[in-house]
C-alpha cells in the first residue's frame, strides 16, 4: 500500500515535470491554454468553421483546433457566427419548447466551459404583434431563457436580458419564413 502510494506520487511528479517541460518548449504561444476538460469532452455542438481556411497544414498547432477557434476569436467574430445558438418561438408564445430546451442545454454546456463569458440574452418578436406589446413579449422570452440557464447552474450575474420587441428584425421579409426567424431569443457574448 505504501509502495503503491509512492508509485502514484512518483507518476504525478513525473507528469508535472513533463507538463513543465512542454510549457518551456513552447514559450511563444500567446493564446491562453484551453480549459483542461476540453480534450476529454467528446461532443460540443459543432462550432463554426474558422473565418479563413488554414493555409499551411504543417502549421496546425497540436491543440484541438475547435476550442482554439472559440477561445481565441474576437467578440465580433464570435457573435457573427455564435457558438451559442438562438432559440425560436411560436407566435405570441414565450414558453420554451422541448427543442428550445435542448438548444439551451447545449448553450449551457458552452457557458460552463467558458466560465468567464458574460452574455446578453436578447428577446425579439416578429412584426405581427404591436410594437408596444412586443417590447414586453420580447422581455418575457429573454427572461424565460435566462431562468432556464440559471436552472442549469449558470450564474444569473453572467446573463443580462434586453428586449428589442420588433425593432431589430433578423429577416426584413414579411412572410412566415421571415417571421419564424424573427421570433427568437438571441445570444450576444459581451465579455470573455
Amino acid at each position, binding site marked *: 500500500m505504501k509502495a503503491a502510494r509512492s508509485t502514484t506520487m512518483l507518476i504525478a511528479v513525473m507528469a508535472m515535470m513533463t507538463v513543465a517541460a512542454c510549457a518551456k518548449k513552447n514559450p511563444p504561444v500567446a493564446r491562453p491554454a484551453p480549459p483542461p476538460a476540453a480534450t476529454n469532452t467528446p461532443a460540443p455542438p459543432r462550432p463554426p468553421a474558422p473565418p479563413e481556411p488554414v493555409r499551411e497544414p504543417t502549421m496546425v498547432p497540436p491543440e484541438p483546433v475547435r476550442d482554439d477557434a472559440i477561445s481565441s476569436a474576437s467578440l465580433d467574430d464570435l457573435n457573427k457566427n455564435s457558438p451559442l445558438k438562438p432559440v425560436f418561438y411560436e407566435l405570441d408564445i414565450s414558453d420554451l419548447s422541448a427543442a428550445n430546451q435542448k438548444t439551451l442545454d447545449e448553450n449551457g454546456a458552452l457557458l460552463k466551459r467558458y466560465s468567464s463569458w458574460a452574455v446578453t440574452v436578447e428577446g425579439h418578436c416578429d*412584426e405581427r404583434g*404591436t*410594437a408596444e406589446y412586443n417590447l*414586453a413579449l420580447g422581455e418575457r422570452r429573454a427572461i424565460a431563457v435566462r431562468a432556464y440557464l440559471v436552472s442549469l447552474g449558470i450564474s444569473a450575474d453572467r446573463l443580462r436580458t434586453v*428586449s428589442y420587441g420588433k*425593432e*431589430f428584425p433578423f429577416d426584413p421579409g414579411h412572410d412566415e419564413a421571415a417571421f419564424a426567424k424573427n421570433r427568437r431569443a438571441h445570444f450576444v457574448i459581451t465579455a470573455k
Partner: protein
Amino acid sequence: MTKFIIPGALAVALLAAWPHAQQPTPPPASQQPTELSTTISGEGGQAPRLAVPDFIALSPDAETVATAKTIGQVLWNDLNFEREFAFIPRDVYASIPKATSFADVPFDRWRELNADGLIVGTVQKVNSGFHVELRLFNVRTRQSAFARGYDGSNARLFAHKMSDELHKSQRALNGVAQSKLTFDSDRDGEKMKGTVQNRSIKEIYIADYDGENQKRVTVGQTLNIAPRWSPDGRSIAYTSYRRGGAHLFISNIFQGTLDEVTKGDKVGENWLPAWSPDGTKLAFSSTRDGNPEIYIVNRDGTGLRRITNNPGIDITPTWNPSGTQIAFTSDRSGSPQIYVVGVDGLNLSKKTSESYADRPTWSPAPFNEIAFASRSGPGFDVKVLDLSTGATKALTFGEGTNESPAFSPNGRHLVFTSTRSGKAQVFTMARDGKNVRQITKAGNNEKPDWSK
C-alpha cells in the same frame, strides 16, 4: 352693504335690456386691423363657402411674391383640414380680377361665385421679414368679419397662426395648424455599433402637423422610440436604449438638454412613458419588480408609485384628460386587451374583448374615447371605443397594418402608423376615418404622437 338677490330669469332679462348686450350686432365697416370679429355663416345652415386667393404682394420682389403665394396656399390647406368651411376651388380664382389692396376687392365677382366669405391678405417686406395683414370679408355685407396684422418671416407659420385664429373666431374651434407630430424613424440608414451586424438605429423626429419641417431631435446612435409630447409642447419623453437596456429619457427640445428619468442597473426595463395632463408625471411600464407593471413617477424620477400587480404583462399606459385614470394594455386574460384603472390602482375594469388590442390613447375632452390598435386578420386596424356607450368603431379596414393611434389636441383627428404604402409610415386621418394623409416617406416611421 346691501345684497340684492336677482332671480336668474330676471337677470337675463335685465342684461338683455342693457345697451351693452347689443354689442354682438355687426360692427360698422372697418378697414383697420383691429381685434373685432364677427362670424360668417353659410346659407340655409350650410358650411360657409370661402375663397382664399393668393395674398397680395405689396412689393414686386420675388421673395415677397413667393411668400404671398405660399401663405395663401398653406392657409387654404390649413382651413380645409378641419372641414368647417366649404371652399370655392382655387382653379376658378383666375377668372376674378386680382385685388391690389383691401380697397379694390371685386366683391361682386366673388358673390357671383356664391362665396360667403373672402380671405384677403397683404404681404409687405419689412426689415425683420414681412408684415402681413389679414381680412376675412363677408362678401354680402362687404364688411370685415376678422382683421389682424402679423409680423414674422416664415410663410407657413403665418398661415398656421391665421388658420387657428380664424377657426377660433369663426367656428369656436381649436384648430391644429400650429400643432406638431413626433415619431421614431430609421430614415438615416445609420447602423448600431456593436457586435451584431446590420441593425438600424432609430431616432426621434418632429414635424409640423402637415408633415412639413421634419427634424431630427435625438443623436443617440441607438434605439430611441415611442416619443410623447409634453403638454406644454417643449419636451418629448421616449424610450431609449442608450444605456444598454430600455430607459425613459426626456429631450427638452428648446433648451437642448436631456433628462434621464430612470437610471441604474436595478430598475429593469422601462418602456413607453406617457405624460400626465398637467405635465408633472409620467406613467410607464417597468420590469423593476420582475414583471412588466404600470408605474407613475414624477418627471424628475422621484415619487415612484406602482399601479398594477398582476403576473401578466401590463404595458402601454395613457392618461384620461383629468389625470384620474390610466388606460393600459394587459394580457392577464390570455390575450392583450385594454383596461382602465384609477391612478390609485383601484377600480380596474376591462374595456375590450378583441382578439388582440394594444396602444390605447385616451381622447381629449369633450370626446370620451379610447383609440387603439386591434388585430384583424394578418394585421391591425385602428379602432375607437366610446366609453360612454361602450360601442367600438373601426377607422381603418385592412389597408396594410395600422397601429399606434394618437389623437390630435382637439380630438378631431388621429395620427397612426400604416404599411399601406409599403414600409411603415406615419399618416393622419379625421376621426371618422376620412381625409387620410401620408406624413412621412423616407425609411420606416412609427409610433407617432400629436402635440397637445
